[in-house]
């Protein structure tokens, strides 16, 4: 691939990132709300499934925009939400920490 084609692709990806940043942030907000609510007690199954879906989507896309660590963290969340029927309160802190890290990673991409 020629250098100018690579530059064009990178620039186009940057434009797409800006276009889809609100969608990424919306997914992060779903995860933040789920982690916050879990800290206070059990959440309904549909909320947990919503969080699992948000984590799955972020895991699938963040690495495509170069955010490999974001994909790893989102995948960890997806696994927790898929295996635990209402993750225990003891996991709430971990969920919140991972979600916060994803938030920072999303916000840090220019």
């Amino acid at each position, binding site marked *: 691939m020629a250098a100018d*084609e690579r530059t064009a*692709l990178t620039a186009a*990806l940057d434009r797409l990132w800006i276009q*889809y940043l609100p969608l990424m942030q919306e997914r992060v907000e779903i995860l933040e709300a789920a982690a916050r609510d879990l800290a206070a007690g059990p959440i309904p199954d549909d909320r947990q499934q919503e969080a699992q879906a948000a984590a799955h*989507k972020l895991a*699938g896309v963040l690495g*495509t925009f170069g955010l*490999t660590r974001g994909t790893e963290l989102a995948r960890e969340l997806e696994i927790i939400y898929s295996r635990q029927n209402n993750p225990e309160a003891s996991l709430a802190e971990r969920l919140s920490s991972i979600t916060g890290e994803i938030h920072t990673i999303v916000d840090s991409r220019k």
Partner: protein
Amino acid sequence: MSHSILVIDDEDDIREVAALSLETVAGWQVFTANSGTQGLARAVEHQPDAILLDVMMPGMDGPTTFRELRKNPATARIPVLLLTAKVQSSDQRRFADLGVEAILLKPFDPLTLSTQIASVLGWK
């Protein structure tokens, strides 16, 4: 030689990045569909050289879409590559049993996606 490919994915961001990558890097003609149902229609209409098919979609999911593509004589011979963020080996075995050409993992690298596809399909 230029090729054509149909990208079926319900996620707008993934679909657009894949299309951008395949057009920009490989120069292929890219058609897109945002659901399995729309994908079946576009496959008949455009007769692409290959189909890149997302697994998890609302309504008709990837495996169901694949089986429908195989049932229709107009699309039965089009090579299909599954695209999935499911990394567990049990999922991968289940998808491989469908008879698709390959299973590609999300996230993909936009710089090398076309190379991966071309390699699987033996495209120069």
